[in-house]
Structure formats: C-alpha cells, structure tokens
C-alpha cells in the first residue's frame, strides 16, 4: 500500500518500540503512554540484558530507556551463557546500557535511535547520556508534550551517526554553525562519509 493511502492514525503501527525501565509500575505507564500515542508494538523490559536479548530476537526501531537500569553483572551483554540468577543483578546506569548497545561487537543494532529519560537532580545526566550515544534526552517528571517533541525531533533527525575511536552515536553537534572569524576547528580528524546501505555490516 503506498504511504499516501494510510490513515494518519495508523502510521505508527509498524514501529517497534522497546521500553526499558527498572520499575515495573513506571514501565507499565510508559507502555500505556506509547500506546495512547498510536505505537501499538510496544515491548517492555526491566533491565538491559533483557533489552539486548529482545533486540536480538525482534527488530526494534526505537528504544526508550530510563537513566537507571538493572543489568546482570556476571554476564557480559551478548554472550550465550546460562541465564543469571537474581543475585547476579545489580543496578547499572542506563548510559552503560546505551554504550554497550552502541559499541559492543555483539550489539544487535548499534544505530537504533535511543531516547533516555533522566533525573533532573542526578549528577550531570544529560552530558553523560549524550556521551553514551543517546539521540534524545527527556528530563523527569514525565510530560506528554516533551515526550512527543523529542520523538518528533528524533524521527526527522538529520545528524550523522559518528564512529570514532572514543565515541559511537549520533553527532553531538546538534546545530553546526560556521566557525567565527579567526576560530579554529577542534575536530582535527578526517571525516569519512558512509552511505546508508552500508550500515548493516559495521
């Protein structure tokens, strides 16, 4: 069916959303909110390990993760050992999860767009989230208009995905401006552009 034949309300049906939140109540609410927006394929998991496993089994187009998560400490994400026990779980920041998603050679999709919801009173959460490679950041308390603004921004994001020695993720220069007169470019490295069809094999 050509895109023009779709009703606006059904446009989000094909988008697979993965929500990660350590609190079951918060995760349930987030699922409800996404469904209200029209995303009918919303999967909820409570920790990063489950998130990675879920992405290996099923295509995910959008990841929505909390700043804090629980992941299995004795199990590196991506290997195939026996399932860990409850004792193997400890809290780990959502930024660590995103870093592993972006940088691990076992990552099911390093390019997937990620929205992270952070605590206002945490220690520099936005900078840490950005450096981990998230696309968009939402500050708690959760507000529907802010959530939608970030999702819309992410969908039409024109920033390139950067792979460098110390960083993988969307370009952190959100609004590239020409250098002022006499200014010097801090980025000394040579930039090589890669086309979209070459994505899969990274």
């Amino acid at each position, binding site marked *: 069916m050509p*895109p*023009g034949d779709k009703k*606006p*309300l059904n*446009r*989000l049906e094909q*988008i697979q959303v993965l929500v990660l*939140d*350590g*609190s079951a*109540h*918060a995760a349930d*609410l987030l699922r*409800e909110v996404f469904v209200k*927006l*029209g995303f009918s394929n919303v999967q909820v998991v409570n920790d990063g390990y489950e998130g990675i496993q879920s992405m290996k089994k099923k295509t995910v*187009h959008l990841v929505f993760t909390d700043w804090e998560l629980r992941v299995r400490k004795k199990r590196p994400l991506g290997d195939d050992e026996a399932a860990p026990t*409850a*004792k193997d779980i*400890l*809290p780990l920041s959502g930024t660590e999860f995103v870093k592993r998603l972006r940088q691990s050679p076992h990552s099911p999709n390093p*390019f*997937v*767009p990620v929205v992270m919801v952070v*605590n*206002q009173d945490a220690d520099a959460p936005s900078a840490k989230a950005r450096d981990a490679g998230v696309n968009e950041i939402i500050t*708690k*308390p*959760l507000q*529907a*208009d802010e959530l*939608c603004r970030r*999702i*819309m921004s*992410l*969908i*039409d*994001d*024109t*920033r*390139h*995905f*950067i*792979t*460098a*020695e110390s960083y993988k993720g969307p*370009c952190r220069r959100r609004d590239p401006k020409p250098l002022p007169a006499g200014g010097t470019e801090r*980025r*000394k*490295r*040579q*930039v*090589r*552009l*890669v*086309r*979209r069809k070459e*994505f899969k*094999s*990274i």
Partner: protein
Amino acid sequence: MVQAKNQPQDDEVIAYEPDRTIRELIGTDIELTQIFTPEKIAACQKTIDSARDTFFDVAGMDLAKLEAFVQNPAAAANTAAFDDIAALAGNIKGHAELFGYSLVAAIGTHIVDHCEPGARTPEVRLRLIADLVKMLHIAIKQKISDARGALGRELGASLRKY
C-alpha cells in the same frame, strides 16, 4: 573486509548517514504534527496525570510488602530477602522519579543502597532499612511529594543521617 572498511582508521571519524527507518515506515508524505496531534498529546498527559494521582495508593501496596519484610527478623540471615527488598524499593523509587516525587525517590534510593553487601552486618543493614521504611511510610501515607513542606523538610533532614 567489510569490518575493516567500517572501522575508523587512525585520526579518522566515520560519519554514517542518519537512520531514517522510522520516517520511511511512517511515510515521507505527512507532517509529524498530523500524527502527534494536540488531542493525542492531551490524552497522553491525562494518562500520566491519572497515574500520578494514584501513585501514593500504588506505592502503598509495595510499602506494605516492604514492611512485612523488615518486621521479619529472619530476613537478616537471608540474602534473597535483601534482593526482594531492593526490588520493591527500586520499584517505588523509579515510579516516584517519573512524577518528580523526589522525597519518596530519595528514601527508596537509600533503601536500595543499604541492600548492597558492605562493611555493615546484615542485622545493622536491616535495622537501617527498617528506619528508612518508617520514613517511607510517613512520606507515602501523608502524600509528601518533596522536602519543601514542614514534614517533608523534617524527613529530608532525617534522611541525610543515612
């Protein structure tokens, strides 16, 4: 070969074209404001507000389970009990944070921290957790969202001792 081609060489940054998968699935013929309409955003906000209104009732159910754990002296000898306490407190904490209920979230954080094995004995940790659960009880039953009111300030000051 492909791997090598896609790995950054010395002093090189690889810039991939932005991922447009979501836009392609939605279709390029529509403005996003036609999908994320003000009505839809308002309905979402209503869902969030409704959950915020029932937060203290929902948290009260987890609180009752927490109280049952800390009133059981045998829990101190049981490592799994600390995992369960941490899970319940973490659940309350994460839920509270979503709505900006900072005091409840802070007490929840302290409880989770004391569940981690450390220098203190399990008996001492359980006693500290029991004190924190009492504070959580007051915060939840009195529906105190932050440390700005008189009782909130008092609880916030007490929390700093832990």
